[in-house]
């Protein structure tokens, strides 16, 4: 080949390169400008990353957000800098962004200068080989979300304890009465033992009462423990409704008795739903407590609660109906909203029904207030039938 030809080739090449770099240069500046804008407004770091997972360019609002300086980063593989795990996630999102042209988002955390930081990365396609990764330091936001979540859990906790507190008075009574039985029988036992000849029949009777009553206390305490527990993470399992509802009614027995509330409970044998026992109990407990409160508040003469369980082809229905005043039309829309309550401060949190609704939804069910001309408020729960394993 002649030298002239080489020159020509080089010439063309260099013109070509020049054009490429000119285009690149112009683009680069436009990019830089838009980066600066984004950088100032929302992003803390912008990486330009190619399909091979290398840093093409880096911009950071603060040097200390970078593991290495810009100069040391450019040309390096991402996985060498942030480790293979995060590196491969980044590569994956870069590929996705480039191939689909759709914006990708990735949240991750890194420890920088001994401080754990949370980042949100948005990937956008720049061209067929390069994506722009805009990174925001969301540590503050994550901290805030965590605080909000903690606050929410605290609220739920306090509500659970409050509804437990409502029955706690009843429980103290429930336990003090059997304790009185045990104490009295122990005292009587001692008296009997002082008299000869020993009245064996009587001693036997005292012992039997002490035994039965201790078992009764044990049962009350286990019921209390069930409801005081946080059931959110319990597995879904088949729950026998007759057993579940009876447990709730037992727990309220004292409160129901003291407010003179009559209860009728119907449930076809063996009806089950798939769910979390504790949560479902809490839902029912709140509905029963609401009914008692409403009837008590309105000083209803004959206080009655009906709990009816129906097993239908379409699923399981549970009705909790009371003989109270019902819910005024203008309040119906608000009933299930968080913090809606008509009860005095310190008595109702207004979270009962809204929490119940979300728990029922977790169970694939629904809860609604239905019209009941003849009676008071009628809350209807619907659940899918539990698919119990064949016997």
């Amino acid at each position, binding site marked *: 080949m002649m030298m002239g030809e080489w020159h020509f080739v080089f010439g063309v090449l260099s013109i070509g390169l020049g054009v490429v770099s000119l285009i690149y240069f112009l683009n680069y500046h436009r990019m830089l400008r838009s980066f600066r804008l984004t950088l100032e407004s929302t992003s803390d770091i912008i990486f330009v990353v190619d399909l091979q997972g290398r840093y093409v360019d880096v911009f950071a609002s603060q040097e200390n957000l970078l593991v290495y300086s810009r100069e040391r980063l450019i040309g390096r593989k991402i996985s060498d800098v942030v480790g293979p795990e995060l590196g491969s996630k980044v590569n994956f999102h870069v590929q996705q962004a480039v191939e689909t042209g759709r914006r990708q988002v990735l949240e991750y955390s890194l420890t920088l200068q001994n401080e754990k930081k949370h980042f949100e990365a948005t990937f956008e396609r720049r061209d067929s080989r390069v994506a722009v990764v805009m990174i925001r330091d969301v540590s503050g936001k994550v901290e805030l979300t965590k605080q909000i979540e903690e606050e929410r859990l605290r609220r739920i906790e306090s509500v659970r304890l409050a509804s437990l507190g409502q029955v706690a008075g009843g429980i*103290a*009574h429930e336990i*003090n009465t059997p304790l009185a039985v045990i*104490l*009295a029988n122990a*005292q*009587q036992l001692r008296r009997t033992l002082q008299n000869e000849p020993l009245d064996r029949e009587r001693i036997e009777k005292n012992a039997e009462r002490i035994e039965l009553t201790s078992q009764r206390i044990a049962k009350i305490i286990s019921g209390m423990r069930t409801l005081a527990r946080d059931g959110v993470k319990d597995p879904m399992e088949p729950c026998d409704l007759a057993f579940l509802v009876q447990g709730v009614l037992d727990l309220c027995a004292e409160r*129901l008795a003291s407010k003179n509330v009559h209860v009728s409970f119907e449930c076809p044998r063996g009806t089950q739903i798939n769910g979390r026992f504790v949560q479902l109990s809490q839902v029912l407990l709140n509905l029963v407590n609401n009914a008692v409160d409403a009837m008590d508040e309105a000083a209803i003469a004959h206080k009655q609660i009906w709990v009816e369980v129906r097993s239908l082809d379409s699923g399981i229905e549970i009705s909790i109906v009371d003989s109270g005043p019902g819910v005024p039309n203008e309040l119906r829309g608000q009933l299930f909203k968080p913090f809606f309550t008509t009860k005095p401060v310190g008595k109702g949190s207004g979270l009962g029904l809204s929490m119940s609704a979300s728990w029922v939804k977790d169970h694939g069910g629904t809860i609604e207030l239905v019209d009941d001309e003849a009676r008071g408020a009628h809350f209807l729960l619907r659940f899918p039938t539990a698919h119990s394993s064949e016997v």
Partner: protein
Amino acid sequence: MHRSEPSLSLATYRILVVEDDEMLRETMVAIMEDCGAGVAGVANGSEAFERLQSEHFDAVITDIRMAGGNGITLIQNINAHFRENRPIVFICSGFSDLDAHDYRHLDVAGVFEKPFQLTDMVERVLASLQSRKK
């Protein structure tokens, strides 16, 4: 080791025990019978008031929270119905009821908080009955 029980005699007195817990009621009745009293036990306030209208009792020991006619209503009925021959009224109750009502206006001779000492209960009932006789 154990202290000997004082000999208490409720003989000649008639006492009505109003308690919805069957076992506690049975035990209270048995102990007071041991002490010589004529004792009747009923499960709620309305039953108790019926009994009181047809029979004489020197003392009534009543629970507060009961299904079917609570203790407060019973005491109010007693106060409204009886004059000279009003039985002495005691309350035996779970602790949690005590702040709910004001007993002072009800003319109650004593309150026994569950779980109570039976000997203490018998002693105090006896003391009230005897001091009234004088």
